[in-house]
């Protein structure tokens, strides 16, 4: 069999995988704070006998798009959006620190501030727990102030500060649960320059128009590789026919 069929196969496989990545991004076109997945491919020379003319396609590790999503006004105090670069620190299911851009928060029955998925939001002084309050405000730098229950409106108490971090994007990776963490396993330091806005949510940063084009490109790319496989098969058939002893 002509070895080129295997080269074409790696190309077709990568195009099919791109389609899965595009489908994932499209499916999350309306997910709060979603960061689009970027796929990158690379050529890898095939080693071994023969001329070094063959290159397989290799899928490179996932990276993600760091551009901001669109901001939507909701008017809810507990909806927060990170303006520009930055992340909200939350506690994952293992109790470790992780980062997210999804700021649709709510209070649990015990007054703990949680994300929509139920991860506890971290403050600079540990998990954010709020006592009963009459009124709640979240400031631009993550400070949470309340008017405690039963107190006059001019009694303002500062409860906690939401931990906002801004590590360099290239040090962050997305993990299986969709949360981001530092690849080094360290905990990011608080960045006082990160700004949030209460009453807004950041949507997904998926560019649907570009995705539609990428989807078509990946499909055509796939067809080319299949075509190459077809050619390899035809070549092989011709070779077999030539070799046949039809005297």
């Amino acid at each position, binding site marked *: 069999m002509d070895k080129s069929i295997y080269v074409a196969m790696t190309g*077709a496989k990568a*195009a*099919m*995988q791109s*389609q*899965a*990545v*595009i*489908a*994932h*991004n*499209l*499916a*999350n*076109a*309306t*997910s*709060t704070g*979603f960061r689009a*997945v970027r796929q990158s491919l690379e050529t890898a020379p095939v080693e071994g006998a023969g001329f070094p003319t063959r290159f397989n396609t290799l*899928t*490179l*590790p*996932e*990276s993600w798009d760091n551009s901001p999503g669109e901001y939507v006004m*909701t*008017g*809810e105090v507990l909806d927060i959006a990170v303006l520009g670069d930055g992340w909200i620190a939350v506690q994952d299911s293992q109790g470790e620190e992780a980062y997210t851009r999804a700021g*649709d928060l*709510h*209070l*649990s*029955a*015990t007054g703990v501030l949680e994300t*929509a*998925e139920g991860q506890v939001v971290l403050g600079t002084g540990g998990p954010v727990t709020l006592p*009963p*309050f*009459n*009124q709640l405000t979240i400031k631009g730098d993550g400070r949470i102030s309340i*008017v405690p*229950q*039963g107190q006059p409106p001019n009694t303002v108490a500062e409860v906690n500060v939401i931990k906002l971090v801004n590590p360099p994007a290239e040090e962050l*990776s*997305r993990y*299986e*649960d*969709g949360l981001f963490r530092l*690849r080094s396993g360290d905990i990011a330091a608080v960045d006082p320059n990160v700004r949030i806005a209460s009453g807004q949510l950041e949507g997904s940063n998926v560019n*649907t128009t570009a*995705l*539609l084009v990428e*989807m078509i490109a990946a*499909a055509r790319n*796939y*067809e080319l590789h*299949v075509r190459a*496989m*077809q050619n390899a*098969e035809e070549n092989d058939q011709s070779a077999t026919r030539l070799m046949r002893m039809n005297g």
Partner: protein
Amino acid sequence: MQSLWIAKTGLDAQQTRMSVVSNNLANVNTNGFKRGRAVFEDLLYQNIQQAGSSTSQNTIDPTGLTLGTGVRIVATEKQFTQGGRVDTGDSTDLMIEGRGFFQILLPDGNLAFTRDGSFNVDAQGRLVTSNGYEVQPAIIVPDGVTALRVSRDGQVEANIAGQAQPSVLGSIQLADFINPGGLTPRGQNLLLESFASGPPQVGQPGLNGLGELSQGALETSNVNVVEELVNMIETQRAYEMNSKSIAISDQMLQYLNNNL
């Protein structure tokens, strides 16, 4: 085949969002209705290659290779922003200005909570909802009442024919929750306490952060029609793109089957 299933999760999510939008629009004239919102999150990522696994004897893979598997609906949460005000002039119509819920006794003996204050007086003189469920604490309106007054802090007074002094019939108390978004909608404009909402904290209107009452007015639905229409368009287009993604993946597989 994977991309077909990923796109399917997108279709499911947009379908749910459409149901939420439709329900909001259908309730644009429902008293005390709070709009819903569908919340989406990305699904688990499949680990194809673990980050930190060795790529050679001395090097390790810095990021690993993960593939997303689509989207899921985390919650359809209610948004408890204040609705508008409609003056009805009816003395048994009440509106809460601020936080809190009226407490309603269900026929099965449990308590339900509502923002809809369009009450009536039934044949036995009890203050009831439009469905005939009794308001708690019970208010009994005697015969011969000429005027009914509800103060901003919930005290109910009545002028009774032949009596100079108005008599106090009782007082309406409101319940509040740490996480109102966690209440379970029951239909009929009623909400039920849940594990997520926490227990009700009952108090006098106007105290401890509870809203005050306003007599002769009703709270309208907090659905914003324009916002819902924009949501509807966005949902429809996202749905179309996800179905496009299915169609293209299908074409690719078809091409493979026809040509090899």
